[in-house]
Protein backbone atom coordinates (compact mmCIF):
# COMPACT_ATOMS: atom_id res chain seq x y z
CA UNK A 1 0.00 0.00 0.00
CA UNK A 2 2.94 2.32 0.54
CA UNK A 3 3.12 2.70 -3.24
CA UNK A 4 -0.17 4.52 -3.24
CA UNK A 5 0.83 7.11 -0.67
CA UNK A 6 2.44 9.46 -3.25
CA UNK A 7 -0.81 9.54 -5.22
CA UNK A 8 -2.70 10.65 -2.14
CA UNK A 9 0.00 13.20 -1.48
CA UNK A 10 -0.29 14.52 -5.02
CA UNK A 11 -4.02 14.76 -4.58
CA UNK A 12 -3.47 16.89 -1.48
CA UNK A 13 -0.92 19.06 -3.27
CA UNK A 14 -3.23 19.57 -6.25
CA UNK A 15 -6.10 20.48 -3.97
CA UNK A 16 -3.91 22.95 -2.12
CA UNK A 17 -2.78 24.46 -5.41
CA UNK A 18 -6.34 24.80 -6.64
CA UNK A 19 -7.39 26.32 -3.34
CA UNK A 20 -4.49 28.74 -3.41
CA UNK A 21 -5.25 29.85 -6.94
CA UNK A 22 -8.93 30.38 -6.27
CA UNK A 23 -8.26 32.00 -2.92
CA UNK A 24 -5.66 34.38 -4.28
CA UNK A 25 -7.90 35.33 -7.16
CA UNK A 26 -10.83 36.00 -4.88
CA UNK A 27 -8.58 38.27 -2.80
CA UNK A 28 -7.21 40.38 -5.61
CA UNK A 29 -9.77 40.11 -8.39
CA UNK A 30 -12.00 42.96 -9.43
CA UNK A 31 -15.49 43.01 -8.00
CA UNK A 32 -18.38 42.74 -10.48
CA UNK A 33 -19.13 46.26 -11.59
CA UNK A 34 -22.80 46.18 -12.48
CA UNK A 35 -25.95 44.17 -12.25
CA UNK A 36 -25.61 43.23 -15.90
CA UNK A 37 -22.42 41.34 -15.08
CA UNK A 38 -24.43 39.10 -12.83
CA UNK A 39 -27.27 38.33 -15.19
CA UNK A 40 -27.33 34.94 -16.89
CA UNK A 41 -25.94 34.85 -20.41
CA UNK A 42 -28.79 34.66 -22.90
CA UNK A 43 -27.31 36.17 -26.05
CA UNK A 44 -27.92 39.73 -24.98
CA UNK A 45 -31.66 39.59 -24.37
CA UNK A 46 -33.82 38.85 -21.39
CA UNK A 47 -34.29 35.27 -20.29
CA UNK A 48 -37.19 33.65 -22.12
CA UNK A 49 -37.78 30.92 -19.59
CA UNK A 50 -35.87 29.66 -16.61
CA UNK A 51 -33.56 26.68 -16.88
CA UNK A 52 -33.80 23.62 -14.70
CA UNK A 53 -36.40 21.75 -16.71
CA UNK A 54 -36.43 18.07 -17.48
CA UNK A 55 -34.04 17.24 -20.24
CA UNK A 56 -34.31 14.77 -23.08
CA UNK A 57 -33.87 11.12 -22.11
CA UNK A 58 -31.30 10.33 -24.77
CA UNK A 59 -28.40 11.48 -22.67
CA UNK A 60 -29.43 9.17 -19.84
CA UNK A 61 -29.62 6.33 -22.33
CA UNK A 62 -25.99 6.93 -23.15
CA UNK A 63 -25.15 6.91 -19.47
CA UNK A 64 -26.95 3.58 -18.97
CA UNK A 65 -25.18 2.00 -21.91
CA UNK A 66 -21.92 3.33 -20.64
CA UNK A 67 -22.38 1.65 -17.28
CA UNK A 68 -23.02 -1.69 -19.00
CA UNK A 69 -19.97 -1.50 -21.17
CA UNK A 70 -17.74 -0.01 -18.55
CA UNK A 71 -18.46 -3.09 -16.44
CA UNK A 72 -17.43 -5.13 -19.41
CA UNK A 73 -14.19 -3.20 -19.63
CA UNK A 74 -13.69 -3.64 -15.91
CA UNK A 75 -13.97 -7.42 -16.36
CA UNK A 76 -11.67 -7.34 -19.33
CA UNK A 77 -8.80 -5.75 -17.42
CA UNK A 78 -7.99 -8.51 -14.91
CA UNK A 79 -8.67 -11.09 -17.59
CA UNK A 80 -6.23 -9.37 -19.96
CA UNK A 81 -3.41 -9.30 -17.43
CA UNK A 82 -3.52 -13.06 -16.90
CA UNK A 83 -4.52 -13.87 -20.45
CA UNK A 84 -1.27 -15.63 -21.30
CA UNK A 85 -1.67 -18.05 -18.40
CA UNK A 86 -5.33 -18.76 -19.15
CA UNK A 87 -4.68 -19.64 -22.75
CA UNK A 88 -7.38 -20.89 -25.07
CA UNK A 89 -10.02 -21.74 -22.39
CA UNK A 90 -9.75 -18.22 -21.04
CA UNK A 91 -10.21 -16.84 -24.51
CA UNK A 92 -13.43 -18.75 -25.04
CA UNK A 93 -14.82 -17.82 -21.66
CA UNK A 94 -14.28 -14.16 -22.38
CA UNK A 95 -15.58 -14.57 -25.94
CA UNK A 96 -18.87 -15.90 -24.54
CA UNK A 97 -19.08 -13.01 -22.08
CA UNK A 98 -18.41 -10.41 -24.74
CA UNK A 99 -20.71 -12.21 -27.14
CA UNK A 100 -23.62 -11.91 -24.72
CA UNK A 101 -22.91 -8.21 -24.24
CA UNK A 102 -22.54 -7.75 -27.96
CA UNK A 103 -26.00 -9.17 -28.55
CA UNK A 104 -27.37 -6.61 -26.15
CA UNK A 105 -25.37 -3.92 -27.87
CA UNK A 106 -26.70 -4.91 -31.28
CA UNK A 107 -30.22 -4.93 -29.84
CA UNK A 108 -29.76 -1.36 -28.61
CA UNK A 109 -28.31 -0.39 -31.95
CA UNK A 110 -31.22 -1.88 -33.89
CA UNK A 111 -33.78 -0.33 -31.56
CA UNK A 112 -32.27 3.07 -32.23
CA UNK A 113 -30.92 3.79 -28.76
CA UNK A 114 -27.79 5.10 -30.41
CA UNK A 115 -29.59 7.34 -32.89
CA UNK A 116 -30.07 11.01 -32.31
CA UNK A 117 -32.92 12.10 -34.50
Amino acid at each position, binding site marked *: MIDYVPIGLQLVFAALLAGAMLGLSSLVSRRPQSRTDLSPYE*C*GVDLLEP*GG*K*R*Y*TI*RFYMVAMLFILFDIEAAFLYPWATVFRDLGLPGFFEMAIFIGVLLVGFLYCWRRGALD*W*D
Partner: protein
Amino acid sequence: MDDARAQPPSMRPVPPETEDALHGDTMVVNMGPSHPSTHGVLRLVLRLDGEVVKAVQPHVGYLHRGMEKIAEGMTYNQFVPYTDRLDYLAPLSNNVAYILAVEKLLAITVPPRARVIRVICCEIARISAHLLWLGTGALDLGAATVFFHTFRERETLYNLIESLTGGRLTTSYTRVGGLSRDLPAGWADRLGEFTRAFPKVLDELDSLLSRNRIWMNRTQGVGRISASDAIAMSLTGPNLRGSGVALDLRKTEPYSGYEAYEFDVPVGREGDAYDRYLVRLEEMRQSVRILDQALGRLPDGAIAVDDPKITLPKKERVLTSMEELIEQFMLVTEGIKGPLGEVYHAIEAPKGELGFYLKSEGDKSPYRLHIRSPSFISLQAVEKMAVGGLLSDLIAVVASLDPVMGEVDR
Protein backbone atom coordinates in the same frame (compact mmCIF):
# COMPACT_ATOMS: atom_id res chain seq x y z
CA MET B 1 -64.90 11.92 -25.75
CA ASP B 2 -67.59 9.29 -25.98
CA ASP B 3 -65.67 7.60 -28.75
CA ALA B 4 -62.62 7.22 -26.56
CA ARG B 5 -64.71 5.62 -23.85
CA ALA B 6 -66.33 3.23 -26.27
CA GLN B 7 -63.02 1.81 -27.35
CA PRO B 8 -61.39 -1.02 -25.41
CA PRO B 9 -58.46 0.31 -23.35
CA SER B 10 -55.78 -1.08 -25.61
CA MET B 11 -57.27 0.70 -28.61
CA ARG B 12 -57.13 4.13 -27.07
CA PRO B 13 -54.69 6.46 -28.72
CA VAL B 14 -51.55 6.99 -26.73
CA PRO B 15 -51.95 10.29 -24.92
CA PRO B 16 -49.33 12.83 -25.91
CA GLU B 17 -47.97 13.00 -22.35
CA THR B 18 -46.32 9.61 -22.78
CA GLU B 19 -44.24 10.89 -25.62
CA ASP B 20 -43.28 13.95 -23.65
CA ALA B 21 -42.25 11.79 -20.75
CA LEU B 22 -39.78 10.09 -23.03
CA HIS B 23 -38.44 13.26 -24.51
CA GLY B 24 -38.36 15.55 -21.53
CA ASP B 25 -39.37 19.18 -21.72
CA THR B 26 -38.57 21.28 -24.69
CA MET B 27 -36.33 24.19 -23.98
CA VAL B 28 -36.70 27.66 -25.44
CA VAL B 29 -33.31 29.14 -26.20
CA ASN B 30 -32.22 32.40 -27.72
CA MET B 31 -29.58 32.20 -30.36
CA GLY B 32 -28.63 35.78 -30.84
CA PRO B 33 -28.74 38.73 -31.17
CA SER B 34 -25.38 38.46 -29.46
CA HIS B 35 -24.16 35.01 -30.35
CA PRO B 36 -20.89 33.91 -31.92
CA SER B 37 -22.44 32.37 -35.00
CA THR B 38 -25.34 34.56 -36.05
CA HIS B 39 -23.43 36.88 -38.40
CA GLY B 40 -24.47 40.11 -36.81
CA VAL B 41 -27.61 40.68 -34.85
CA LEU B 42 -29.83 37.92 -36.10
CA ARG B 43 -31.88 36.47 -33.29
CA LEU B 44 -33.32 33.01 -33.58
CA VAL B 45 -35.64 31.80 -30.87
CA LEU B 46 -35.37 28.04 -30.79
CA ARG B 47 -37.45 25.38 -29.21
CA LEU B 48 -35.15 22.47 -28.58
CA ASP B 49 -35.85 18.90 -27.62
CA GLY B 50 -32.39 17.92 -26.51
CA GLU B 51 -30.31 18.49 -29.60
CA VAL B 52 -33.24 18.48 -32.01
CA VAL B 53 -34.68 21.77 -33.23
CA LYS B 54 -38.45 21.67 -32.92
CA ALA B 55 -39.21 25.24 -33.90
CA VAL B 56 -37.31 28.26 -35.10
CA GLN B 57 -38.56 31.77 -35.01
CA PRO B 58 -36.28 34.40 -36.51
CA HIS B 59 -36.46 37.90 -35.07
CA VAL B 60 -34.88 40.63 -37.15
CA GLY B 61 -34.78 44.39 -36.98
CA TYR B 62 -31.96 44.95 -34.51
CA LEU B 63 -30.04 46.84 -37.20
CA HIS B 64 -32.96 48.80 -38.61
CA ARG B 65 -31.89 52.28 -39.64
CA GLY B 66 -34.91 53.33 -41.65
CA MET B 67 -33.05 53.62 -44.93
CA GLU B 68 -36.18 53.55 -47.04
CA LYS B 69 -37.59 56.43 -45.01
CA ILE B 70 -34.34 58.36 -45.17
CA ALA B 71 -34.35 58.05 -48.97
CA GLU B 72 -37.60 60.00 -49.14
CA GLY B 73 -35.76 63.11 -48.03
CA MET B 74 -32.59 62.69 -50.06
CA THR B 75 -31.60 63.56 -53.57
CA TYR B 76 -30.74 60.61 -55.74
CA ASN B 77 -27.01 61.10 -55.35
CA GLN B 78 -27.22 61.70 -51.62
CA PHE B 79 -28.58 58.24 -51.02
CA VAL B 80 -25.54 56.45 -52.47
CA PRO B 81 -23.63 56.34 -49.14
CA TYR B 82 -26.60 54.65 -47.49
CA THR B 83 -26.37 51.78 -49.94
CA ASP B 84 -22.87 51.06 -48.64
CA ARG B 85 -24.48 49.95 -45.40
CA LEU B 86 -26.86 47.47 -46.97
CA ASP B 87 -24.78 44.40 -47.61
CA TYR B 88 -21.72 45.91 -45.99
CA LEU B 89 -19.60 43.06 -47.30
CA ALA B 90 -20.22 44.08 -50.89
CA PRO B 91 -20.79 47.86 -50.84
CA LEU B 92 -19.52 48.34 -54.38
CA SER B 93 -22.19 46.16 -55.89
CA ASN B 94 -24.88 47.88 -53.80
CA ASN B 95 -23.73 51.22 -55.18
CA VAL B 96 -24.02 49.86 -58.69
CA ALA B 97 -27.41 48.28 -58.04
CA TYR B 98 -28.90 51.48 -56.70
CA ILE B 99 -27.46 53.74 -59.35
CA LEU B 100 -28.61 51.45 -62.15
CA ALA B 101 -32.16 51.73 -60.84
CA VAL B 102 -31.90 55.50 -60.75
CA GLU B 103 -30.45 55.60 -64.24
CA LYS B 104 -33.25 53.38 -65.44
CA LEU B 105 -35.71 55.83 -63.96
CA LEU B 106 -33.95 58.77 -65.59
CA ALA B 107 -33.16 56.83 -68.82
CA ILE B 108 -29.48 57.67 -68.70
CA THR B 109 -26.86 55.77 -70.64
CA VAL B 110 -23.37 55.87 -69.17
CA PRO B 111 -20.13 55.78 -71.18
CA PRO B 112 -18.54 52.38 -71.92
CA ARG B 113 -15.59 52.87 -69.59
CA ALA B 114 -17.91 53.46 -66.66
CA ARG B 115 -19.84 50.32 -67.51
CA VAL B 116 -16.74 48.14 -67.57
CA ILE B 117 -15.53 49.61 -64.30
CA ARG B 118 -18.95 48.89 -62.80
CA VAL B 119 -18.62 45.26 -63.85
CA ILE B 120 -15.20 45.16 -62.21
CA CYS B 121 -16.72 46.64 -59.04
CA CYS B 122 -19.50 44.07 -58.97
CA GLU B 123 -17.14 41.16 -59.37
CA ILE B 124 -14.63 42.43 -56.79
CA ALA B 125 -17.55 42.80 -54.42
CA ARG B 126 -18.70 39.27 -55.19
CA ILE B 127 -15.30 37.76 -54.52
CA SER B 128 -14.86 39.73 -51.34
CA ALA B 129 -18.34 38.87 -50.06
CA HIS B 130 -18.01 35.20 -50.91
CA LEU B 131 -14.62 35.07 -49.24
CA LEU B 132 -16.10 36.42 -46.06
CA TRP B 133 -18.96 33.97 -46.28
CA LEU B 134 -16.52 31.11 -46.77
CA GLY B 135 -14.35 32.18 -43.86
CA THR B 136 -17.15 32.70 -41.39
CA GLY B 137 -19.04 29.67 -42.61
CA ALA B 138 -16.04 27.49 -42.03
CA LEU B 139 -15.47 29.14 -38.67
CA ASP B 140 -19.05 28.34 -37.70
CA LEU B 141 -18.35 24.68 -38.34
CA GLY B 142 -15.09 24.84 -36.41
CA ALA B 143 -12.53 25.23 -39.19
CA ALA B 144 -10.90 28.40 -37.95
CA THR B 145 -7.93 28.42 -40.26
CA VAL B 146 -9.95 28.95 -43.45
CA PHE B 147 -11.18 32.19 -41.94
CA PHE B 148 -7.73 33.71 -41.75
CA HIS B 149 -6.76 32.61 -45.23
CA THR B 150 -9.84 34.21 -46.72
CA PHE B 151 -9.25 37.36 -44.74
CA ARG B 152 -5.73 37.64 -46.08
CA GLU B 153 -7.16 37.67 -49.60
CA ARG B 154 -9.87 40.12 -48.67
CA GLU B 155 -7.16 42.41 -47.39
CA THR B 156 -5.69 42.56 -50.89
CA LEU B 157 -9.10 43.38 -52.28
CA TYR B 158 -9.75 45.98 -49.62
CA ASN B 159 -6.46 47.68 -50.45
CA LEU B 160 -7.56 47.80 -54.07
CA ILE B 161 -10.95 49.15 -53.10
CA GLU B 162 -9.33 51.72 -50.85
CA SER B 163 -7.12 53.10 -53.57
CA LEU B 164 -10.06 53.10 -55.95
CA THR B 165 -12.67 54.78 -53.80
CA GLY B 166 -10.88 56.22 -50.80
CA GLY B 167 -12.79 54.04 -48.40
CA ARG B 168 -12.48 50.37 -47.55
CA LEU B 169 -16.00 49.65 -46.40
CA THR B 170 -17.93 52.79 -47.22
CA THR B 171 -17.11 53.06 -50.88
CA SER B 172 -19.93 55.29 -52.23
CA TYR B 173 -18.30 54.92 -55.61
CA THR B 174 -21.08 55.41 -58.10
CA ARG B 175 -22.87 58.60 -59.10
CA VAL B 176 -25.94 59.13 -61.21
CA GLY B 177 -24.57 59.08 -64.74
CA GLY B 178 -21.22 57.49 -63.95
CA LEU B 179 -18.65 57.07 -61.22
CA SER B 180 -17.16 59.32 -58.61
CA ARG B 181 -13.60 59.03 -59.95
CA ASP B 182 -11.51 57.20 -62.50
CA LEU B 183 -9.18 54.29 -61.82
CA PRO B 184 -5.92 55.42 -60.20
CA ALA B 185 -2.72 54.91 -62.17
CA GLY B 186 -1.53 51.31 -62.11
CA TRP B 187 -4.70 50.09 -60.47
CA ALA B 188 -5.65 47.79 -63.31
CA ASP B 189 -2.25 46.12 -63.13
CA ARG B 190 -2.61 45.54 -59.40
CA LEU B 191 -5.99 43.97 -59.99
CA GLY B 192 -4.38 41.84 -62.70
CA GLU B 193 -1.83 40.58 -60.19
CA PHE B 194 -4.66 39.61 -57.89
CA THR B 195 -6.59 37.73 -60.56
CA ARG B 196 -3.45 35.81 -61.48
CA ALA B 197 -2.64 34.83 -57.90
CA PHE B 198 -6.13 34.25 -56.57
CA PRO B 199 -7.07 30.97 -58.35
CA LYS B 200 -4.21 29.23 -56.52
CA VAL B 201 -5.61 30.42 -53.21
CA LEU B 202 -9.03 29.14 -54.23
CA ASP B 203 -7.52 25.75 -54.95
CA GLU B 204 -5.95 25.79 -51.50
CA LEU B 205 -9.26 26.64 -49.83
CA ASP B 206 -10.95 24.02 -51.97
CA SER B 207 -8.50 21.37 -50.84
CA LEU B 208 -8.98 22.35 -47.18
CA LEU B 209 -12.72 21.73 -47.24
CA SER B 210 -14.32 20.26 -50.35
CA ARG B 211 -13.13 16.70 -49.86
CA ASN B 212 -12.83 16.90 -46.10
CA ARG B 213 -14.92 14.09 -44.65
CA ILE B 214 -16.09 16.06 -41.61
CA TRP B 215 -16.97 19.07 -43.72
CA MET B 216 -18.96 16.90 -46.11
CA ASN B 217 -20.77 15.19 -43.25
CA ARG B 218 -21.62 18.52 -41.73
CA THR B 219 -23.00 20.09 -44.90
CA GLN B 220 -24.29 17.34 -47.18
CA GLY B 221 -28.01 16.78 -46.85
CA VAL B 222 -28.24 19.67 -44.38
CA GLY B 223 -30.75 22.45 -45.02
CA ARG B 224 -31.99 20.78 -48.17
CA ILE B 225 -34.54 22.65 -50.26
CA SER B 226 -35.94 21.53 -53.59
CA ALA B 227 -35.86 23.71 -56.67
CA SER B 228 -39.62 24.30 -56.67
CA ASP B 229 -39.64 25.12 -52.96
CA ALA B 230 -36.72 27.47 -53.41
CA ILE B 231 -38.53 29.32 -56.18
CA ALA B 232 -41.74 29.44 -54.15
CA MET B 233 -39.80 30.85 -51.19
CA SER B 234 -38.38 33.52 -53.51
CA LEU B 235 -34.80 32.46 -52.92
CA THR B 236 -32.35 34.02 -55.34
CA GLY B 237 -28.65 34.02 -56.00
CA PRO B 238 -26.42 31.16 -54.83
CA ASN B 239 -29.13 29.92 -52.49
CA LEU B 240 -31.41 29.27 -55.45
CA ARG B 241 -28.67 28.04 -57.75
CA GLY B 242 -27.62 25.53 -55.09
CA SER B 243 -30.98 23.87 -55.70
CA GLY B 244 -30.24 23.55 -59.40
CA VAL B 245 -32.02 26.60 -60.83
CA ALA B 246 -29.66 28.42 -63.18
CA LEU B 247 -31.12 31.86 -62.54
CA ASP B 248 -28.48 34.55 -62.75
CA LEU B 249 -29.57 38.08 -63.58
CA ARG B 250 -26.25 38.67 -65.29
CA LYS B 251 -27.40 36.16 -67.88
CA THR B 252 -31.17 36.56 -67.88
CA GLU B 253 -31.40 40.34 -67.64
CA PRO B 254 -27.90 41.58 -68.34
CA TYR B 255 -26.94 45.05 -67.16
CA SER B 256 -23.75 47.06 -67.61
CA GLY B 257 -22.86 44.93 -70.60
CA TYR B 258 -22.69 41.54 -68.86
CA GLU B 259 -24.04 39.92 -72.01
CA ALA B 260 -20.62 40.46 -73.59
CA TYR B 261 -18.70 38.48 -70.97
CA GLU B 262 -18.08 34.78 -71.04
CA PHE B 263 -18.76 33.00 -67.79
CA ASP B 264 -20.63 29.99 -66.51
CA VAL B 265 -23.42 29.87 -63.99
CA PRO B 266 -22.65 27.05 -61.56
CA VAL B 267 -25.62 25.20 -60.14
CA GLY B 268 -25.97 22.53 -57.48
CA ARG B 269 -27.99 19.36 -57.53
CA GLU B 270 -29.19 18.56 -54.04
CA GLY B 271 -29.98 22.01 -52.75
CA ASP B 272 -28.15 21.36 -49.49
CA ALA B 273 -25.56 23.41 -47.68
CA TYR B 274 -22.74 21.59 -49.43
CA ASP B 275 -24.11 22.50 -52.86
CA ARG B 276 -24.51 26.11 -51.88
CA TYR B 277 -20.91 26.00 -50.72
CA LEU B 278 -19.71 24.55 -54.04
CA VAL B 279 -21.75 27.07 -56.01
CA ARG B 280 -20.21 30.03 -54.22
CA LEU B 281 -16.72 28.59 -54.52
CA GLU B 282 -17.17 28.21 -58.27
CA GLU B 283 -18.69 31.67 -58.57
CA MET B 284 -15.46 33.15 -57.30
CA ARG B 285 -13.60 31.37 -60.10
CA GLN B 286 -16.09 32.72 -62.63
CA SER B 287 -15.69 36.20 -61.17
CA VAL B 288 -11.98 35.98 -61.79
CA ARG B 289 -12.75 35.10 -65.40
CA ILE B 290 -15.01 38.11 -65.75
CA LEU B 291 -12.42 40.38 -64.14
CA ASP B 292 -9.78 39.20 -66.59
CA GLN B 293 -12.06 39.90 -69.54
CA ALA B 294 -13.03 43.29 -68.16
CA LEU B 295 -9.39 44.27 -67.67
CA GLY B 296 -8.65 43.17 -71.21
CA ARG B 297 -11.30 45.36 -72.77
CA LEU B 298 -11.19 48.42 -70.50
CA PRO B 299 -11.82 51.28 -72.95
CA ASP B 300 -10.48 54.81 -72.60
CA GLY B 301 -12.81 57.73 -72.30
CA ALA B 302 -15.11 59.42 -69.87
CA ILE B 303 -16.36 57.77 -66.71
CA ALA B 304 -19.56 59.82 -66.54
CA VAL B 305 -22.08 61.33 -68.89
CA ASP B 306 -21.31 64.84 -69.99
CA ASP B 307 -24.58 66.47 -68.96
CA PRO B 308 -24.52 69.38 -66.52
CA LYS B 309 -28.00 68.46 -65.33
CA ILE B 310 -26.75 65.10 -64.11
CA THR B 311 -23.05 65.18 -63.28
CA LEU B 312 -20.97 67.81 -61.54
CA PRO B 313 -18.60 69.86 -63.68
CA LYS B 314 -14.85 69.71 -63.12
CA LYS B 315 -13.68 71.51 -60.03
CA GLU B 316 -11.19 73.78 -61.78
CA ARG B 317 -13.90 74.84 -64.20
CA VAL B 318 -16.23 75.60 -61.32
CA LEU B 319 -13.62 77.88 -59.80
CA THR B 320 -12.94 79.76 -63.02
CA SER B 321 -16.15 79.82 -65.01
CA MET B 322 -19.47 81.39 -64.11
CA GLU B 323 -21.52 78.95 -66.11
CA GLU B 324 -20.08 75.87 -64.45
CA LEU B 325 -20.39 77.49 -61.03
CA ILE B 326 -24.10 77.97 -61.58
CA GLU B 327 -24.47 74.43 -62.90
CA GLN B 328 -22.73 73.01 -59.85
CA PHE B 329 -24.84 75.16 -57.55
CA MET B 330 -28.06 74.08 -59.22
CA LEU B 331 -27.15 70.40 -59.19
CA VAL B 332 -26.08 70.40 -55.55
CA THR B 333 -29.02 72.38 -54.23
CA GLU B 334 -31.79 71.20 -56.54
CA GLY B 335 -30.62 67.68 -57.29
CA ILE B 336 -31.82 65.72 -60.25
CA LYS B 337 -35.53 65.80 -60.87
CA GLY B 338 -36.98 62.41 -61.70
CA PRO B 339 -39.86 61.87 -64.14
CA LEU B 340 -43.27 60.64 -63.07
CA GLY B 341 -43.12 56.92 -62.91
CA GLU B 342 -41.90 53.86 -61.14
CA VAL B 343 -39.15 51.41 -61.93
CA TYR B 344 -37.72 48.27 -60.42
CA HIS B 345 -34.21 47.28 -61.29
CA ALA B 346 -32.29 44.38 -59.88
CA ILE B 347 -28.75 43.12 -60.20
CA GLU B 348 -27.14 39.84 -59.31
CA ALA B 349 -25.54 40.87 -56.03
CA PRO B 350 -23.35 38.35 -54.18
CA LYS B 351 -26.31 37.35 -52.02
CA GLY B 352 -28.86 37.18 -54.82
CA GLU B 353 -31.30 39.53 -56.47
CA LEU B 354 -30.73 43.00 -55.05
CA GLY B 355 -33.48 45.17 -56.45
CA PHE B 356 -34.47 48.79 -55.95
CA TYR B 357 -38.02 49.93 -56.50
CA LEU B 358 -38.19 53.65 -57.14
CA LYS B 359 -41.40 55.62 -57.27
CA SER B 360 -40.89 59.13 -58.52
CA GLU B 361 -43.47 61.90 -58.37
CA GLY B 362 -41.30 64.30 -60.31
CA ASP B 363 -39.38 65.48 -57.27
CA LYS B 364 -35.64 65.57 -56.58
CA SER B 365 -36.01 62.68 -54.18
CA PRO B 366 -37.91 59.44 -54.63
CA TYR B 367 -41.47 59.38 -53.39
CA ARG B 368 -40.89 55.84 -52.24
CA LEU B 369 -37.80 53.68 -52.35
CA HIS B 370 -38.02 50.02 -51.59
CA ILE B 371 -35.02 47.74 -51.32
CA ARG B 372 -35.60 44.15 -52.28
CA SER B 373 -32.72 42.69 -50.31
CA PRO B 374 -31.85 39.06 -51.02
CA SER B 375 -30.86 38.27 -47.43
CA PHE B 376 -34.19 39.41 -46.04
CA ILE B 377 -36.11 37.20 -48.42
CA SER B 378 -33.89 34.15 -48.11
CA LEU B 379 -33.81 34.31 -44.34
CA GLN B 380 -37.45 33.26 -44.21
CA ALA B 381 -36.32 29.87 -45.49
CA VAL B 382 -34.42 29.20 -42.25
CA GLU B 383 -37.49 27.80 -40.59
CA LYS B 384 -38.20 25.39 -43.43
CA MET B 385 -34.60 24.25 -43.61
CA ALA B 386 -33.75 23.88 -39.94
CA VAL B 387 -36.81 22.48 -38.19
CA GLY B 388 -36.39 18.80 -37.47
CA GLY B 389 -32.64 18.95 -37.76
CA LEU B 390 -30.05 19.17 -35.02
CA LEU B 391 -28.84 22.32 -33.38
CA SER B 392 -25.51 21.98 -35.15
CA ASP B 393 -27.31 21.76 -38.48
CA LEU B 394 -29.01 25.05 -37.79
CA ILE B 395 -25.58 26.66 -37.63
CA ALA B 396 -24.71 25.16 -40.99
CA VAL B 397 -28.04 26.26 -42.46
CA VAL B 398 -27.67 29.87 -41.36
CA ALA B 399 -24.08 29.91 -42.57
CA SER B 400 -25.04 28.46 -45.93
CA LEU B 401 -27.82 31.03 -46.47
CA ASP B 402 -25.28 33.80 -45.97
CA PRO B 403 -27.54 36.49 -44.51
CA VAL B 404 -26.13 39.93 -43.82
CA MET B 405 -28.10 41.81 -41.26
CA GLY B 406 -27.30 45.23 -42.70
CA GLU B 407 -29.33 44.19 -45.68
CA VAL B 408 -32.02 42.30 -43.80
CA ASP B 409 -32.92 45.15 -41.49
CA ARG B 410 -32.04 48.13 -43.71
